[in-house]
């Protein structure tokens, strides 16, 4: 990737830039009152003047899950009581993962007017996107609660594992936002590419099909990074323990992702305002 390098002469040494990048991320997190407010505002703005507000999200997702659940259970000859809860949760969690990736592409682009006027840690725009999607996820989780009540699913102690999984997904959302937000600000066709990739990724992730039904080609599945995050959050809520290697794999991906994001942010953070 070719990115303008006129900057380099102005940079005294690599270390201060790294410190500035880390500082940006830390101070951004501290400004939670700002991104918290903006994240809520985003949701309220979308559903202003509608009686149900953000619960429209819940309803449309619920309608889709209910309809597809019954259809596919018949189509794939599955037991509805097994299949539907897993499908519902699969859709809800995938919704979180996919919007985190897709909307984070525009984290900096959408904040252009703010970035060009006030000096703020740029990372707040990423936190805003992550926070907004966590709120939407919480609304969608209601669907699962209803489904769980109908099919009498109680996750039990395993359900507690969902909390660290959600935290891990949030942390991944932040590095993805920094990386994709930055690259998209420079190359404006990246959001389109990412959207297409996510579309394909959906079909390669066991949401409408189950891992059991895929015989012989399991290794392809293991290459899909979304599989791990999806199951880390989905399995505990269904009362299952995710496979033992999932946590280490997901943690390793998180670390690599953060390293890559920091590497890029260190070099190009100061250029983002110029690219907008």
């Amino acid at each position, binding site marked *: 990737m*070719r990115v*303008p*390098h006129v900057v380099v002469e102005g940079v005294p040494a690599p270390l201060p830039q790294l410190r500035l990048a880390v500082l940006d991320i830390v101070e951004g997190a501290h400004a939670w009152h700002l991104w918290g407010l903006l994240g809520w505002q985003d949701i309220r703005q979308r559903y202003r003047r509608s009686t149900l507000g953000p619960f429209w999200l819940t309803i449309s997702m619920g309608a889709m899950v209910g309809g597809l659940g019954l259809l596919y259970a018949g189509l794939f000859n599955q037991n509805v009581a097994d299949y539907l809860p897993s499908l519902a949760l699969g859709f809800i969690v995938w919704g979180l993962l996919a919007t985190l990736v897709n909307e984070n592409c525009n984290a900096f682009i959408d904040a252009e007017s703010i970035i060009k006027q006030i000096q703020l840690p740029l990372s707040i725009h990423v936190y805003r996107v992550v926070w907004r999607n966590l709120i939407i996820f919480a609304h969608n989780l209601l669907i699962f609660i209803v489904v769980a009540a109908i099919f009498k699913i109680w996750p039990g102690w395993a359900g507690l594992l969902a909390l660290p999984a959600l935290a891990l997904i949030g942390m991944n959302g932040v590095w993805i936002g920094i990386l994709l937000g930055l690259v998209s600000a420079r190359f404006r066709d990246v959001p389109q590419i990412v959207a297409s990739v996510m579309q394909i990724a959906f079909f390669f992730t066991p949401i409408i099909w189950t891992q059991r039904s895929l015989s012989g080609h399991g290794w392809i599945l293991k290459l899909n990074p979304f599989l791990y995050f999806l199951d880390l959050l989905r399995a505990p809520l269904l009362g299952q323990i995710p496979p033992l290697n999932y946590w280490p794999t997901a943690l390793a991906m998180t670390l690599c992702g953060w390293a890559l994001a920091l590497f890029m942010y260190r070099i190009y953070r100061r250029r983002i305002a*110029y690219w907008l």
Partner: protein
Amino acid sequence: MARIQLDRVSVQFPIYNANTRSLKKSLMHRTTAGRIARDAGDRVCIEALNDVTLTFERGDRIGLVGANGAGKTTLLRVLAGVYEPTLGTIHRDGRVAPLFDIALGIDPEATGYDNILIRGAFLGLRRQEVCARMDEIAAFTELGDYLAMPVRTYSSGMKLRLAFAVSTCVAAEIALMDEWIGVGDAAFVGKAERRITDLVERAGILVLASHNSELLERTCTKGIMLQHGKISATGTIRDVLREYDSHRSAG
């Protein structure tokens, strides 16, 4: 302590067209080594600021003059910390109030009160701090019960009042303005004028970019003239304005 120091600051804008903005094209350049790649590297840059060195101390009232495209806005943005210079260093002490776009963050669907909260958050105020000032801000806008209505129902004059009241409610050590903030509403003009004058007087440093010589002479003590991104004259505002006028009539 309000203080700004710029040391040999240059700002260059890379100009991107659809070609360099495309990731695919960039990757293809990468694979075709040599001449083409070098062409792609020698991209067109606009030198918005060139080797600018200056120091502003507490009490300075600086007027920026220069033709359109001379670099006034870019310099203000560098002072605000929005653009990190491509070359050179900037040292700045003091809280900055950028007053370039007072409509920043105004959400038309939210109520006046909500917008005051949002704008306050941008200025670094916590909810409690904004709420503590809410009465004062609300009184200043003279909008009364309208503050509980969505901003989209406001007339443009009312919107301006709201934005103005919020963005000027925080005292700042360094005030940066791209043209004087005007409020169209005749009844409001006097009040707004007093408020902004008060804000400017309380600020340790004021930097005002304007084309209005009379305003600059009234408000500022020092002047800086920019020409093609370079400082071409400094001194008292009177001298700089005279220089600017003679330059304009000559050129």
